């Protein structure tokens, strides 16, 4: 790990690179957009903190408003980081199946309201056994597969039988339903609406069936950044799991109200031709899953190719020289932050704060 903690007040031109920076004006803009969107809705934001991996940033969104004061984490280890950071309402929209990890969840449940998602009766029974032994109550939501073909029940009937099992067992409480979906080709407001409505309706159908069977549904947790504004207004949805919106990436360029706050600062280390500049940012520090190419922050420069520790930039008018700084915009924010240990937070190109990323690497 690299604990690079530059002095507050440093100009970014004096930062060593590559360096993950957060532009505070953009970050605050994004938090305000969410606060404003959820100001008068019953539905609230439950920020997915797998993206920023920082309880400090989660609490910053809470202070701006729009949230239900709870968060999502993808993993148990991330939940531990959030509880340690003082966030106590936690939903893990994922399956936790092994005894050692369920015991960790039970330990956390003594400090907060811990909720897991399940998609099988077998998993419910295991959680119930451990929670009963530990004397805690674990909230359970039923995961519904709406579009991803990943985990989750495939039918309302499956949902009803799991809800029934939860209701009959000790140590677990039935709290609601959860789904996660992705946006498809059409990213216009109409396209996003149709996609969100079509998928979330599948989740709501499971909710309706469970309620008809006599089990009240307290939480419908769904949605993500692509439909943050739409899901909030679909009746029945109680909370939205947005995460990417905080730091943003080029893959969400269709949501123009948000700004990209997380960027990687680099330096030109070689200039083999007048129109070629080699930068010190590579796929290891940037995370460049196949097909997701980063973008140069500025005009007239194209990203030509990316290597392990270098990037090749093509310039039109010979405007980059050895030693010059440049910024890259990530294609995928979550993967990028997972490669870093610190955020260097800047405003008007001056370092204001340096924040840890305690959730980095919390895969367990």
């Amino acid at each position, binding site marked *: 790990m690299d604990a690079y903690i530059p002095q507050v007040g440093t100009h970014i031109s004096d930062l060593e690179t590559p360096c993950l920076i957060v532009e505070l004006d953009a970050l605050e803009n994004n938090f305000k957009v969410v606060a404003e969107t959820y100001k008068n809705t019953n539905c609230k934001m439950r920020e997915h903190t797998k993206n920023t991996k920082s309880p400090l940033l989660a609490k910053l969104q809470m202070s701006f408003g729009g949230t239900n004061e709870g968060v999502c984490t993808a993993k148990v280890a991330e939940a531990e980081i959030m509880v340690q950071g003082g966030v106590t309402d936690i939903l893990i929209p994922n399956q936790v199946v092994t005894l050692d990890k369920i015991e960790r969840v039970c330990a956390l449940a003594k400090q907060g309201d811990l909720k897991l998602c399940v998609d099988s009766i077998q998993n419910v029974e295991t959680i119930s056994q451990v929670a009963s032994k530990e004397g805690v109550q674990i909230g359970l939501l039923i995961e519904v597969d709406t579009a991803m073909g990943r*985990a989750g029940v495939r039918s309302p009937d499956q949902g009803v039988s799991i809800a029934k099992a939860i209701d009959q067992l000790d140590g677990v409480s039935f709290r609601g339903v959860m789904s996660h979906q992705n946006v498809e080709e059409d990213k216009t407001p109409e396209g996003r609406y149709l996609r969100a409505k079509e998928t979330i309706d599948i989740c709501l159908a499971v909710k309706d069936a469970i309620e008809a069977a006599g089990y009240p549904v307290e939480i419908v947790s769904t949605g993500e950044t692509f439909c943050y504004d739409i899901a909030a207004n679909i009746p029945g949805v109680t909370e939205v799991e947005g995460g990417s919106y905080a730091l943003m990436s080029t893959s969400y360029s269709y949501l123009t109200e948000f700004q990209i706050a997380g960027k990687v600062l680099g330096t030109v280390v070689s200039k083999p031709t007048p129109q070629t500049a*080699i930068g010190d940012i590579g796929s*290891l520090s940037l995370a460049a899953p196949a097909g997701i190419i980063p973008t140069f922050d500025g005009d007239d420069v194209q990203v030509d190719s990316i290597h392990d520790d270098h990037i090749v930039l093509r310039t039109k008018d010979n405007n980059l020289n050895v030693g010059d700084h440049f910024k890259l915009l990530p294609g995928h924010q979550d993967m990028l932050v997972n*490669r870093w240990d610190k955020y260097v937070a800047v405003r008007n190109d001056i370092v204001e704060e340096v924040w840890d990323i305690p959730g980095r690497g919390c895969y367990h």
Partner: protein
Amino acid sequence: MERPIIKPIGTPTEELDTPSLIVDGDVLNENIETMASFFRDRPQKLRPLVSSHRSPTIAHKQIRAGGTVEGIAVTTLSQAEVFIASGFTDVYIANLVVTKAKIARLCALTKQATVTVAVDSHANVNDLNDDAARKDTTIRVIIYVSAGDGLFGVDSDQEAVDLASTITNASNLELAGITGGEAVNDILGAKRTIEAAGIPVYSVTINGEADYKQVGMMEDVTEVLAGSYALMDHSRRELFPEFKCAGRIMSTVTSRPEAGYMITDAGQKSIGADTGFPSIDNLPESSVKGLSAEHGSIYFSQSKHCNPQLGDKVWCTPHDIATCVNLHDYMFIVSDGTLEAIWDVPARGRYR
């Protein structure tokens, strides 16, 4: 930072927390011995490229096995800092160091170890010499010849000779040798031209990640860089059948939504998919449908002999081991099915 549950030495491998980077210690030792035995009795020697495992423990094993120049190669200055702190005394930084702050860090390192850095321009050579003179130290430099791939490096023999001449006239630099990208003949040609101009070139360092045997048998080559052989990966296993995959991600089945289909707890964040998908080693006819950030979606051939349940383990061989190692803070070393040791990965995230 990773937060795996740390279990006692001797714990059966399949009881370890997941998703974790598990290294078969015996396979690792065999791989290291296979490579060492190739170079042991040759004039050409290996310089382990340690950025593909980022572990000083593995690097020490590589040096102890023999057949090396008794030095290592890293890809960034901050990796050099980690390995020098771990006792390595000969480190080649296979990269350019150009900014003032970094040149100052480089000079500081030269007081702890023999440090060599690549150069491709007069301006950089002058900057390195100026700071080394101020700090009263010597920096070893190695001329990087372009492979014609658009990356850095000098583009012609004449440029190489001019740069060699500037280096030999510099008060606080030492010309260590020549290196470059994959165009080996261009590097050797540049070497001969520099020597014809009366400047000795002591080392010729060639990257052998694509074919260590071929470059390891070339007459003028003195050092071969290679590193991924130690842990191996899916992208290289067919090319190098003499090495076996030692570094793999052990994951857990977390959902079985459909017959012949499973969801696991390892996705792009813990395996890495920058260059391609992992292979699944312990399921018949398996294929990776997709890797989300935290999930693996895997098809397999279900039968009465193969019907994994929630909690069962799935072994993934990463496509590129360097990408995978860079995601982890711990390597769990196993032997004969139990945990033997836990090594940390101190050079993870050392990009600077």
